[in-house]
Protein backbone atom coordinates (compact mmCIF):
# COMPACT_ATOMS: atom_id res chain seq x y z
CA UNK A 1 0.00 0.00 0.00
CA UNK A 2 1.48 3.25 -1.03
CA UNK A 3 2.47 6.20 1.12
CA UNK A 4 0.48 9.36 0.70
CA UNK A 5 1.46 12.99 1.02
CA UNK A 6 -0.12 14.96 3.88
CA UNK A 7 -1.27 18.37 2.72
CA UNK A 8 -2.24 21.57 4.48
CA UNK A 9 -5.74 22.32 3.27
CA UNK A 10 -7.79 25.38 4.05
CA UNK A 11 -11.44 25.09 5.01
CA UNK A 12 -13.12 27.40 2.48
CA UNK A 13 -16.67 26.54 3.48
CA UNK A 14 -18.40 24.93 6.44
CA UNK A 15 -22.09 24.10 6.11
CA UNK A 16 -24.45 22.23 8.43
CA UNK A 17 -25.92 19.82 5.89
CA UNK A 18 -28.48 18.35 8.24
CA UNK A 19 -28.66 17.76 11.97
CA UNK A 20 -25.26 16.52 13.14
CA UNK A 21 -23.65 16.44 9.71
CA UNK A 22 -21.05 18.99 8.72
CA UNK A 23 -20.02 19.55 5.11
CA UNK A 24 -16.48 20.91 4.74
CA UNK A 25 -15.01 22.20 1.48
CA UNK A 26 -11.22 22.11 1.42
CA UNK A 27 -8.68 23.75 -0.86
CA UNK A 28 -4.90 23.54 -0.98
CA UNK A 29 -3.32 26.52 0.72
CA UNK A 30 -1.08 27.32 -2.24
CA UNK A 31 -1.58 24.86 -5.13
CA UNK A 32 -4.48 25.32 -7.56
CA UNK A 33 -5.12 21.59 -7.99
CA UNK A 34 -5.42 18.73 -5.54
CA UNK A 35 -4.37 15.14 -6.25
CA UNK A 36 -6.75 13.32 -8.59
CA UNK A 37 -9.13 10.75 -7.13
CA UNK A 38 -11.97 8.41 -8.06
CA UNK A 39 -15.42 8.20 -6.56
CA UNK A 40 -15.29 6.03 -3.43
CA UNK A 41 -11.86 7.31 -2.33
CA UNK A 42 -11.23 8.49 1.21
CA UNK A 43 -8.77 10.85 2.83
CA UNK A 44 -7.20 10.82 6.27
CA UNK A 45 -7.71 13.89 8.40
CA UNK A 46 -4.82 14.23 10.86
CA UNK A 47 -5.99 15.81 14.08
CA UNK A 48 -3.65 17.87 16.27
CA UNK A 49 -3.56 15.22 19.01
CA UNK A 50 -2.20 12.65 16.56
CA UNK A 51 -5.50 10.93 15.85
CA UNK A 52 -6.19 10.07 12.23
CA UNK A 53 -9.71 9.74 10.89
CA UNK A 54 -10.89 8.54 7.48
CA UNK A 55 -13.60 10.35 5.56
CA UNK A 56 -14.87 9.59 2.08
CA UNK A 57 -14.76 12.36 -0.46
CA UNK A 58 -18.29 13.23 -1.54
CA UNK A 59 -17.71 15.99 -4.08
CA UNK A 60 -17.18 15.70 -7.80
CA UNK A 61 -14.08 13.71 -8.81
CA UNK A 62 -13.85 15.96 -11.91
CA UNK A 63 -13.28 19.00 -9.71
CA UNK A 64 -9.65 19.08 -8.67
CA UNK A 65 -9.84 22.48 -6.97
CA UNK A 66 -11.68 21.38 -3.85
CA UNK A 67 -12.38 18.30 -1.78
CA UNK A 68 -15.62 17.88 0.11
CA UNK A 69 -16.14 15.72 3.16
CA UNK A 70 -19.33 15.20 5.14
CA UNK A 71 -18.66 14.48 8.79
CA UNK A 72 -21.31 13.11 11.08
CA UNK A 73 -20.93 13.88 14.76
CA UNK A 74 -20.45 10.53 16.46
CA UNK A 75 -21.26 11.32 20.07
CA UNK A 76 -20.30 7.81 21.14
CA UNK A 77 -17.31 7.58 18.78
CA UNK A 78 -13.61 7.96 19.43
CA UNK A 79 -13.66 11.77 19.57
CA UNK A 80 -12.43 12.72 16.10
CA UNK A 81 -15.74 13.90 14.64
CA UNK A 82 -16.60 15.85 17.80
CA UNK A 83 -13.31 17.69 17.61
CA UNK A 84 -13.89 18.60 13.97
CA UNK A 85 -17.46 19.73 14.65
CA UNK A 86 -16.40 21.83 17.64
CA UNK A 87 -13.06 23.22 16.50
CA UNK A 88 -12.86 23.48 12.70
CA UNK A 89 -14.25 26.56 11.00
CA UNK A 90 -13.95 28.41 7.71
CA UNK A 91 -10.40 29.66 7.18
CA UNK A 92 -8.84 27.02 9.41
CA UNK A 93 -6.09 24.70 8.24
CA UNK A 94 -6.45 20.94 8.43
CA UNK A 95 -3.87 18.30 7.60
CA UNK A 96 -5.32 15.95 5.02
CA UNK A 97 -3.71 13.07 3.17
CA UNK A 98 -3.91 12.55 -0.56
CA UNK A 99 -6.88 10.29 -1.35
CA UNK A 100 -6.70 6.51 -1.20
CA UNK A 101 -9.06 4.35 -3.22
CA UNK A 102 -10.10 1.05 -1.69
CA UNK A 103 -13.60 1.27 -3.11
CA UNK A 104 -14.48 2.42 -6.61
CA UNK A 105 -16.67 1.72 -9.63
CA UNK A 106 -15.82 -1.63 -11.12
CA UNK A 107 -14.11 -0.92 -14.43
CA UNK A 108 -15.91 -3.77 -16.14
CA UNK A 109 -19.37 -2.83 -14.91
CA UNK A 110 -22.07 -1.65 -17.28
CA UNK A 111 -24.67 -0.82 -14.66
CA UNK A 112 -24.30 0.21 -11.04
CA UNK A 113 -26.67 -0.28 -8.12
CA UNK A 114 -25.81 1.94 -5.16
CA UNK A 115 -27.35 1.19 -1.76
CA UNK A 116 -26.55 3.73 0.95
CA UNK A 117 -27.65 4.07 4.54
CA UNK A 118 -27.35 7.44 6.31
CA UNK A 119 -23.85 8.92 6.31
CA UNK A 120 -22.77 5.90 4.23
CA UNK A 121 -24.02 7.97 1.32
CA UNK A 122 -20.72 9.89 1.09
CA UNK A 123 -18.55 7.58 -1.07
CA UNK A 124 -21.53 6.43 -3.11
CA UNK A 125 -22.53 10.00 -3.96
CA UNK A 126 -19.08 10.57 -5.46
CA UNK A 127 -19.33 7.25 -7.32
CA UNK A 128 -22.74 8.24 -8.68
CA UNK A 129 -21.25 11.52 -9.88
CA UNK A 130 -18.54 9.54 -11.66
CA UNK A 131 -21.04 7.12 -13.18
CA UNK A 132 -23.08 10.05 -14.45
CA UNK A 133 -19.98 11.68 -15.94
CA UNK A 134 -19.13 8.35 -17.61
CA UNK A 135 -22.63 8.15 -19.04
CA UNK A 136 -23.19 4.83 -17.25
CA UNK A 137 -26.51 3.43 -16.17
CA UNK A 138 -27.16 3.37 -12.43
CA UNK A 139 -29.82 3.38 -9.75
CA UNK A 140 -29.34 4.78 -6.23
CA UNK A 141 -31.25 3.41 -3.23
CA UNK A 142 -30.90 5.70 -0.23
CA UNK A 143 -32.11 4.75 3.26
CA UNK A 144 -32.37 7.06 6.24
CA UNK A 145 -34.53 7.36 9.30
CA UNK A 146 -36.31 10.49 8.13
CA UNK A 147 -36.11 12.76 5.13
CA UNK A 148 -34.93 15.63 7.34
CA UNK A 149 -32.08 13.48 8.74
CA UNK A 150 -30.77 12.26 5.38
CA UNK A 151 -27.27 13.63 4.75
CA UNK A 152 -26.53 15.11 1.33
CA UNK A 153 -30.06 14.44 0.08
CA UNK A 154 -30.26 17.60 -2.02
CA UNK A 155 -26.93 16.89 -3.74
CA UNK A 156 -27.92 13.31 -4.31
CA UNK A 157 -31.25 14.29 -5.84
CA UNK A 158 -29.47 16.71 -8.14
CA UNK A 159 -26.93 14.10 -9.29
CA UNK A 160 -29.31 11.16 -9.60
CA UNK A 161 -32.58 12.83 -10.66
CA UNK A 162 -35.08 10.07 -11.41
CA UNK A 163 -32.51 7.36 -10.67
CA UNK A 164 -32.79 8.07 -6.94
CA UNK A 165 -35.07 5.84 -4.88
CA UNK A 166 -35.43 6.94 -1.26
CA UNK A 167 -36.43 4.73 1.65
CA UNK A 168 -37.22 6.67 4.81
CA UNK A 169 -38.15 4.63 7.87
CA UNK A 170 -41.05 6.94 8.71
CA UNK A 171 -42.38 6.85 5.13
CA UNK A 172 -41.46 3.72 3.16
CA UNK A 173 -38.83 1.51 4.82
CA UNK A 174 -36.45 -0.35 2.52
CA UNK A 175 -37.69 -3.84 1.67
CA UNK A 176 -34.38 -5.33 0.65
CA UNK A 177 -35.87 -8.58 -0.64
CA UNK A 178 -38.27 -6.65 -2.86
CA UNK A 179 -35.48 -4.38 -4.03
CA UNK A 180 -33.34 -7.37 -5.05
CA UNK A 181 -36.32 -8.96 -6.78
CA UNK A 182 -36.52 -5.87 -9.00
CA UNK A 183 -32.80 -5.78 -9.76
CA UNK A 184 -31.46 -6.65 -13.15
CA UNK A 185 -28.91 -9.33 -12.23
CA UNK A 186 -27.31 -9.24 -15.66
CA UNK A 187 -23.58 -9.93 -15.79
CA UNK A 188 -22.52 -6.29 -16.08
CA UNK A 189 -24.48 -5.13 -13.03
CA UNK A 190 -22.53 -4.41 -9.84
CA UNK A 191 -23.86 -3.58 -6.37
CA UNK A 192 -22.12 -1.12 -4.02
CA UNK A 193 -23.18 -0.87 -0.40
CA UNK A 194 -22.20 1.54 2.34
CA UNK A 195 -23.92 2.20 5.64
CA UNK A 196 -24.54 0.65 9.03
CA UNK A 197 -23.64 -3.02 9.50
CA UNK A 198 -27.36 -3.82 9.71
CA UNK A 199 -27.79 -2.67 6.12
CA UNK A 200 -24.61 -4.13 4.67
CA UNK A 201 -25.22 -7.47 6.41
CA UNK A 202 -28.70 -7.57 4.86
CA UNK A 203 -27.28 -6.79 1.41
CA UNK A 204 -24.71 -9.55 1.81
CA UNK A 205 -27.30 -12.04 2.98
CA UNK A 206 -29.83 -11.38 0.22
CA UNK A 207 -27.14 -11.12 -2.47
CA UNK A 208 -25.86 -14.54 -1.44
CA UNK A 209 -29.35 -16.05 -1.44
CA UNK A 210 -30.09 -14.51 -4.84
CA UNK A 211 -26.89 -15.95 -6.25
CA UNK A 212 -24.92 -12.74 -6.84
CA UNK A 213 -21.21 -13.57 -7.18
CA UNK A 214 -19.05 -11.92 -4.52
CA UNK A 215 -16.99 -10.03 -7.09
CA UNK A 216 -20.07 -8.07 -8.15
CA UNK A 217 -21.06 -6.94 -4.66
CA UNK A 218 -18.80 -4.26 -3.13
CA UNK A 219 -18.72 -2.61 0.27
CA UNK A 220 -17.05 0.32 1.93
CA UNK A 221 -16.46 -0.36 5.58
CA UNK A 222 -15.40 2.21 8.15
CA UNK A 223 -16.02 0.32 11.35
CA UNK A 224 -13.71 -2.41 12.51
CA UNK A 225 -15.36 -5.82 12.24
CA UNK A 226 -13.93 -7.10 15.49
CA UNK A 227 -15.05 -10.16 17.32
CA UNK A 228 -15.13 -9.51 21.07
CA UNK A 229 -14.49 -13.17 21.73
CA UNK A 230 -11.24 -13.23 19.79
CA UNK A 231 -8.32 -14.22 22.01
CA UNK A 232 -4.98 -13.14 20.53
CA UNK A 233 -2.10 -15.60 20.79
CA UNK A 234 1.60 -14.87 20.36
CA UNK A 235 3.07 -15.69 16.96
CA UNK A 236 6.30 -15.32 15.06
CA UNK A 237 7.05 -13.12 12.07
CA UNK A 238 9.77 -14.07 9.63
CA UNK A 239 10.91 -11.07 7.59
CA UNK A 240 11.45 -12.36 4.06
CA UNK A 241 14.06 -9.77 3.09
CA UNK A 242 16.36 -10.32 6.07
CA UNK A 243 15.36 -13.66 7.53
CA UNK A 244 14.90 -11.98 10.91
CA UNK A 245 12.46 -13.69 13.28
CA UNK A 246 10.49 -11.59 15.73
CA UNK A 247 7.85 -12.65 18.22
CA UNK A 248 4.57 -10.78 18.45
CA UNK A 249 3.23 -11.07 22.01
CA UNK A 250 -0.49 -11.62 22.51
CA UNK A 251 -1.05 -8.07 23.69
CA UNK A 252 0.71 -6.30 20.80
CA UNK A 253 0.14 -5.99 17.07
CA UNK A 254 2.46 -7.18 14.34
CA UNK A 255 2.66 -3.58 13.16
CA UNK A 256 3.88 -2.24 16.50
CA UNK A 257 6.45 -5.01 16.87
CA UNK A 258 7.81 -4.43 13.36
CA UNK A 259 8.13 -0.72 14.13
CA UNK A 260 9.98 -1.52 17.35
CA UNK A 261 12.41 -3.52 15.26
CA UNK A 262 13.11 -0.48 13.08
CA UNK A 263 10.95 -1.35 10.06
CA UNK A 264 9.31 1.70 8.52
CA UNK A 265 5.67 0.68 8.28
CA UNK A 266 3.00 3.05 6.99
CA UNK A 267 -0.31 3.01 8.82
CA UNK A 268 -3.32 5.15 9.39
CA UNK A 269 -6.43 3.88 11.16
CA UNK A 270 -4.77 0.89 12.87
CA UNK A 271 -8.23 -0.67 13.01
CA UNK A 272 -8.04 -2.77 9.86
CA UNK A 273 -10.29 -0.51 7.82
CA UNK A 274 -8.06 1.88 5.83
CA UNK A 275 -5.57 -0.48 4.19
CA UNK A 276 -2.52 1.75 4.75
CA UNK A 277 -0.38 -0.98 6.29
CA UNK A 278 -1.27 -3.88 4.00
CA UNK A 279 1.72 -6.05 3.13
CA UNK A 280 2.27 -9.33 1.37
CA UNK A 281 2.91 -12.69 3.00
CA UNK A 282 4.25 -15.85 1.49
CA UNK A 283 3.94 -18.49 4.12
CA UNK A 284 1.85 -19.15 7.19
CA UNK A 285 -1.76 -19.20 8.26
CA UNK A 286 -3.01 -15.66 8.74
CA UNK A 287 -5.96 -14.80 10.99
CA UNK A 288 -7.51 -11.98 8.99
CA UNK A 289 -9.36 -9.50 11.18
CA UNK A 290 -9.51 -6.51 8.84
CA UNK A 291 -12.44 -5.09 6.92
CA UNK A 292 -10.59 -4.05 3.80
CA UNK A 293 -9.08 -7.06 2.01
CA UNK A 294 -11.24 -9.17 -0.28
CA UNK A 295 -11.21 -12.93 0.05
CA UNK A 296 -9.01 -13.18 -3.04
CA UNK A 297 -6.53 -10.62 -1.69
CA UNK A 298 -6.33 -12.46 1.62
CA UNK A 299 -4.54 -15.33 -0.05
CA UNK A 300 -1.37 -13.25 -0.31
CA UNK A 301 -1.84 -10.05 1.69
CA UNK A 302 -2.53 -9.15 5.29
CA UNK A 303 -3.17 -6.11 7.48
CA UNK A 304 -0.56 -6.19 10.25
CA UNK A 305 -2.23 -3.51 12.39
CA UNK A 306 -4.97 -5.94 13.36
CA UNK A 307 -4.50 -9.32 11.74
CA UNK A 308 -2.43 -12.05 13.29
CA UNK A 309 -1.18 -15.53 12.43
CA UNK A 310 -1.23 -19.04 13.79
CA UNK A 311 2.30 -19.89 14.94
CA UNK A 312 4.22 -17.99 12.28
CA UNK A 313 3.97 -15.99 9.08
CA UNK A 314 6.58 -14.88 6.56
CA UNK A 315 6.04 -11.26 5.62
CA UNK A 316 7.11 -9.90 2.27
CA UNK A 317 8.79 -6.79 3.64
Amino acid sequence: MSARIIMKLTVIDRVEDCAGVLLLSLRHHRKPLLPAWRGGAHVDIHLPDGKVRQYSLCGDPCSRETYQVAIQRETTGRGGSNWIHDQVGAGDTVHVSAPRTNFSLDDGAERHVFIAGGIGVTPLLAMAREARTNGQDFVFHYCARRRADAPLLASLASVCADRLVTHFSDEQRLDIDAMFADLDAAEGTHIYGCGPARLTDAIRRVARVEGWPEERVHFEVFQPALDDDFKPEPFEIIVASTGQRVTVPADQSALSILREQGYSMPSSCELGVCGACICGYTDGQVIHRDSVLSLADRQARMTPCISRARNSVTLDI
Partner: protein
Amino acid sequence: MTDWQGGELLHIHIAPAAAHEMEAVDEAELVAGRGIVGDRYFLGTGTYSPKPDIREVTLIEIETIDALAANDPPLQDGPIVLDPSDHRRNLTTRGVPLNHLVGKRFRVGDTILRGGRLNFPCKYLEELLGEPVYLPLYNRSGLNCTIETGGVIHPGDVISPLDD
Protein backbone atom coordinates in the same frame (compact mmCIF):
# COMPACT_ATOMS: atom_id res chain seq x y z
CA MET B 1 35.68 19.91 -10.33
CA THR B 2 38.76 21.96 -9.63
CA ASP B 3 37.38 24.86 -11.60
CA TRP B 4 34.15 25.02 -9.63
CA GLN B 5 34.02 28.50 -8.18
CA GLY B 6 30.59 28.46 -6.60
CA GLY B 7 26.84 28.40 -7.07
CA GLU B 8 23.65 29.64 -5.53
CA LEU B 9 21.05 28.50 -3.03
CA LEU B 10 17.68 28.79 -4.77
CA HIS B 11 15.16 27.35 -2.32
CA ILE B 12 14.91 26.13 1.26
CA HIS B 13 12.18 23.63 2.16
CA ILE B 14 11.33 21.92 5.43
CA ALA B 15 8.56 19.60 6.63
CA PRO B 16 7.48 19.00 10.21
CA ALA B 17 7.06 15.23 9.89
CA ALA B 18 7.20 12.26 7.54
CA ALA B 19 4.88 12.54 4.52
CA HIS B 20 3.91 16.13 5.31
CA GLU B 21 4.31 18.46 2.36
CA MET B 22 7.53 20.44 2.25
CA GLU B 23 7.08 24.18 2.78
CA ALA B 24 9.32 26.90 1.41
CA VAL B 25 10.92 29.21 3.97
CA ASP B 26 12.70 32.53 3.51
CA GLU B 27 15.32 31.71 6.05
CA ALA B 28 16.39 28.67 8.01
CA GLU B 29 18.55 28.04 11.04
CA LEU B 30 21.09 25.27 10.61
CA VAL B 31 22.29 23.68 13.84
CA ALA B 32 25.67 21.94 13.73
CA GLY B 33 25.38 18.20 14.21
CA ARG B 34 21.57 18.33 14.26
CA GLY B 35 19.76 19.68 11.21
CA ILE B 36 17.46 22.49 10.17
CA VAL B 37 15.26 23.87 12.93
CA GLY B 38 11.68 22.79 12.24
CA ASP B 39 12.57 20.04 9.78
CA ARG B 40 11.63 16.42 10.33
CA TYR B 41 15.23 15.22 10.60
CA PHE B 42 15.96 17.88 13.21
CA LEU B 43 12.82 16.85 15.11
CA GLY B 44 13.33 13.10 14.72
CA THR B 45 9.98 12.70 12.96
CA GLY B 46 11.23 11.80 9.47
CA THR B 47 10.52 8.60 7.61
CA TYR B 48 14.13 7.51 8.09
CA SER B 49 14.70 9.04 11.53
CA PRO B 50 14.70 5.59 13.20
CA LYS B 51 17.62 4.64 10.95
CA PRO B 52 20.56 6.87 11.87
CA ASP B 53 22.35 8.13 8.80
CA ILE B 54 23.80 11.33 7.39
CA ARG B 55 20.71 13.39 6.82
CA GLU B 56 21.09 16.66 8.71
CA VAL B 57 20.49 18.60 5.52
CA THR B 58 19.82 17.34 2.01
CA LEU B 59 20.55 19.12 -1.26
CA ILE B 60 19.57 18.63 -4.89
CA GLU B 61 20.51 20.44 -8.10
CA ILE B 62 17.90 22.45 -9.95
CA GLU B 63 19.67 21.19 -13.07
CA THR B 64 18.33 17.70 -12.24
CA ILE B 65 14.80 19.01 -11.79
CA ASP B 66 15.10 20.85 -15.12
CA ALA B 67 16.40 17.69 -16.81
CA LEU B 68 13.41 15.68 -15.56
CA ALA B 69 11.07 18.38 -16.83
CA ALA B 70 12.77 18.26 -20.23
CA ASN B 71 13.07 14.45 -20.13
CA ASP B 72 16.68 14.91 -21.16
CA PRO B 73 18.15 12.34 -21.35
CA PRO B 74 14.91 10.46 -22.06
CA LEU B 75 14.90 8.19 -19.01
CA GLN B 76 11.15 8.09 -18.55
CA ASP B 77 7.99 8.01 -20.64
CA GLY B 78 7.69 11.77 -20.71
CA PRO B 79 8.54 14.98 -18.90
CA ILE B 80 8.19 14.95 -15.11
CA VAL B 81 7.59 18.43 -13.80
CA LEU B 82 8.41 18.71 -10.11
CA ASP B 83 7.69 21.74 -8.00
CA PRO B 84 10.69 22.63 -5.79
CA SER B 85 8.59 21.50 -2.83
CA ASP B 86 8.07 18.06 -4.36
CA HIS B 87 11.54 16.50 -4.31
CA ARG B 88 11.74 16.56 -0.49
CA ARG B 89 15.36 17.74 -0.33
CA ASN B 90 15.94 20.75 1.92
CA LEU B 91 18.08 22.90 -0.34
CA THR B 92 17.75 23.38 -4.09
CA THR B 93 20.98 24.60 -5.65
CA ARG B 94 22.11 26.05 -8.96
CA GLY B 95 25.61 25.61 -10.31
CA VAL B 96 26.80 23.23 -7.59
CA PRO B 97 28.26 19.85 -8.68
CA LEU B 98 26.84 17.94 -5.72
CA ASN B 99 28.14 14.53 -6.81
CA HIS B 100 31.67 15.89 -6.52
CA LEU B 101 31.22 17.10 -2.98
CA VAL B 102 31.19 13.79 -1.11
CA GLY B 103 33.73 14.19 1.68
CA LYS B 104 34.18 17.87 0.85
CA ARG B 105 33.42 20.92 2.94
CA PHE B 106 31.66 23.86 1.37
CA ARG B 107 29.95 27.05 2.43
CA VAL B 108 26.27 27.86 2.15
CA GLY B 109 26.06 31.52 3.14
CA ASP B 110 27.77 31.71 6.51
CA THR B 111 27.34 28.02 7.31
CA ILE B 112 29.66 25.15 6.49
CA LEU B 113 28.38 21.79 5.30
CA ARG B 114 30.27 18.57 4.67
CA GLY B 115 29.15 16.21 1.91
CA GLY B 116 28.40 12.89 3.60
CA ARG B 117 27.02 10.56 0.99
CA LEU B 118 25.15 10.71 -2.26
CA ASN B 119 21.42 10.63 -1.75
CA PHE B 120 19.78 7.71 -3.48
CA PRO B 121 16.24 7.76 -4.80
CA CYS B 122 13.58 5.87 -2.88
CA LYS B 123 10.31 4.27 -3.84
CA TYR B 124 8.73 6.14 -0.96
CA LEU B 125 9.17 9.43 -2.82
CA GLU B 126 7.69 7.89 -5.94
CA GLU B 127 4.63 6.79 -3.95
CA LEU B 128 4.18 10.16 -2.29
CA LEU B 129 4.41 12.02 -5.58
CA GLY B 130 2.55 9.52 -7.71
CA GLU B 131 5.25 10.14 -10.33
CA PRO B 132 7.83 7.59 -11.60
CA VAL B 133 10.87 9.49 -10.32
CA TYR B 134 12.82 6.53 -8.95
CA LEU B 135 14.85 5.62 -12.01
CA PRO B 136 15.18 9.14 -13.46
CA LEU B 137 16.78 10.28 -10.17
CA TYR B 138 19.42 7.55 -10.20
CA ASN B 139 22.89 9.07 -9.72
CA ARG B 140 21.48 12.58 -9.45
CA SER B 141 19.28 12.38 -6.39
CA GLY B 142 21.33 14.92 -4.46
CA LEU B 143 23.70 14.99 -1.51
CA ASN B 144 23.19 14.30 2.18
CA CYS B 145 25.30 16.51 4.39
CA THR B 146 26.32 17.12 7.95
CA ILE B 147 26.42 20.64 9.33
CA GLU B 148 29.87 21.60 10.60
CA THR B 149 29.14 25.24 11.30
CA GLY B 150 25.58 26.32 11.88
CA GLY B 151 23.92 29.63 11.16
CA VAL B 152 21.06 31.23 9.31
CA ILE B 153 20.76 30.77 5.55
CA HIS B 154 18.54 32.40 2.93
CA PRO B 155 17.62 31.72 -0.69
CA GLY B 156 20.14 33.61 -2.81
CA ASP B 157 23.07 32.72 -0.54
CA VAL B 158 26.31 31.89 -2.30
CA ILE B 159 27.49 28.26 -2.18
CA SER B 160 31.27 28.03 -2.47
CA PRO B 161 34.02 25.44 -2.06
CA LEU B 162 36.22 25.28 1.02
CA ASP B 163 38.47 22.26 0.47
CA ASP B 164 40.89 22.01 -2.39
